């Protein structure tokens, strides 16, 4: 018997596929998410839209608050640590969260290094904008990837760009001859072994969800059609007029992403979506997706 193997870490992400993971800030929101059919919740003190609005340093959430959410629901509970903050990760492993998100949404603790995730028993998910970044995180031990998008904007444009970029690069690798792969490994800044593996299999070695700006059932289905394995929704649900109804609709849209009839039905009468931000309104220094190395 062996616990916390890479297969069990990757395996939990595989069990979440085709599902929606929702940001929640209270046990009550966690229950609403579970009732709506979320496959997991991300426990945090402020959703990305509020972090963006309030500014300041965003850190790991209070472990006491995360534990209350873990007690409130039977689905897996994830929580975020700052990029490179090894000790925040040790604390979350100690309280037994099911997954850690080493997240650009929080203020980075290290401007050069990410956490060596192989050292942990708890699995990690990390953000990526392109294939090189995804494979660097996987080499560090990430058992799940999410494309970054631009969190807290309610604007899907960056999520689309990142997912298309990753998928394009995978297709390109698949069509390359073996002697081109080393140069491409150098070009993408990713380990040669992983580049070779992706070239052969034509897919990432771990599950890849879409995140950052997904705010409607149509957004969720769009990301699934572009090749996402599942969806993270941050501010999009609890910053909208009718969270339960919208959450349910997004769950159904993620399952029936290829069925316009269902998508039309679930998109009806959802009330106001979160207001959202046009990307050009966000200064370069305020972009979250550029955090990560």
């Amino acid at each position, binding site marked *: 018997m062996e616990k916390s193997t890479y297969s069990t870490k990757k*395996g939990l992400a595989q069990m979440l*596929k085709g599902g929606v993971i929702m940001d929640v800030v209270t046990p009550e929101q966690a229950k609403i998410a579970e009732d709506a059919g979320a496959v997991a919740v991300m426990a945090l003190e402020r959703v990305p839209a509020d972090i963006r609005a309030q500014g300041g340093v965003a850190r790991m959430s209070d472990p006491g608050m995360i534990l209350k959410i873990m007690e409130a629901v039977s*689905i897996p509970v994830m929580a975020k640590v700052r990029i490179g903050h090894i000790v925040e990760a040790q604390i979350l492993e100690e309280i037994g969260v099911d997954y850690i998100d080493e997240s650009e949404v929080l203020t980075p603790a290290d401007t050069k290094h990410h956490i060596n995730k192989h050292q942990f028993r708890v699995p990690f998910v990390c953000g990526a904008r392109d294939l090189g970044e995804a494979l660097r995180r996987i080499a560090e031990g990430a058992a799940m990837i999410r494309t970054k998008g631009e969190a807290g904007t309610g604007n899907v444009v960056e999520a689309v760009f990142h997912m298309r970029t990753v998928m394009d690069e995978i297709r390109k690798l698949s069509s390359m001859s073996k002697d081109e792969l080393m140069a491409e490994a150098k070009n993408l800044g990713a380990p040669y072994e992983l580049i070779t593996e992706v070239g052969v299999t034509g897919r990432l070695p771990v599950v890849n969800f879409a995140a950052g700006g997904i705010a409607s059932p149509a957004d969720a289905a769009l990301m699934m059609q572009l090749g996402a394995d599942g969806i993270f929704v941050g501010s999009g649900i609890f910053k909208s007029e009718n969270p339960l109804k919208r959450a349910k609709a997004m769950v159904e849209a993620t399952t029936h992403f290829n069925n316009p009839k269902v998508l039309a039905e679930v998109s009806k009468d959802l009330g106001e979506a979160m207001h959202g931000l046009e990307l050009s309104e966000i200064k370069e220094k305020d972009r979250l997706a550029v955090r990560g190395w």
Partner: protein
Amino acid sequence: MIAEMKKRQPIGILALQGSFLEHALAVEKTGAQAVLVRLPKDLEGVKGLIIPGGESTTISKLLDAYNLTDIIRNLALRGFPLYGTCAGMILLSKKIENSNADLSRVNSLSLIDITIRRNAFGRQLESFEEELDMPVIGKRPFHAIFIRAPLILQVGSSVRILASLKDNSQHNLQGKQIVAVEQGAILVTAFHPELTDDLRIHRYFLEKVKKYARQKNDLIVNSFI
């Protein structure tokens, strides 16, 4: 081609959420045809159905939302073969024991006479891999992956036990730890054969399908969808 001339057995994979693509791949590797099932009409013509791993709360809500719960139940009561892994096993069980949660979270299909406990070993940090003896698929042990896995606590008289964990002490649990059983045409495992390359359990289920899938199945399916 010869392979195309021989009609492949269509097996449904419930594709609402979870590891359905992994199951579909395993089914295709055995030579059968995988059919993804999201709506009642997708059941047309399939000879058996696999309910994958995933989140049982999520899958149960999506089953209810499109009337699949009653249809699958009615089919199964007439001998339609079903195989549930992990969340699938939870959904097929008659009784769910859950010490810290209200039962309403999972609306079970209630088809196999077992009592199970969700997340019986604990949270993700307790997920594990173990070699399992399962005589019905052969002598070689099966490498089983358990993820936030449920456990079978009690079985009814019509249920046959196929595999149990060898060493109870490592999981801090009492009693016999049953992880695979069958009852007629229904098979369930607490672990995930779809995450490994070992196809023996899928083949075992497909044998069941052959045995139980008679022509009347088509008539039954068409009468419910």
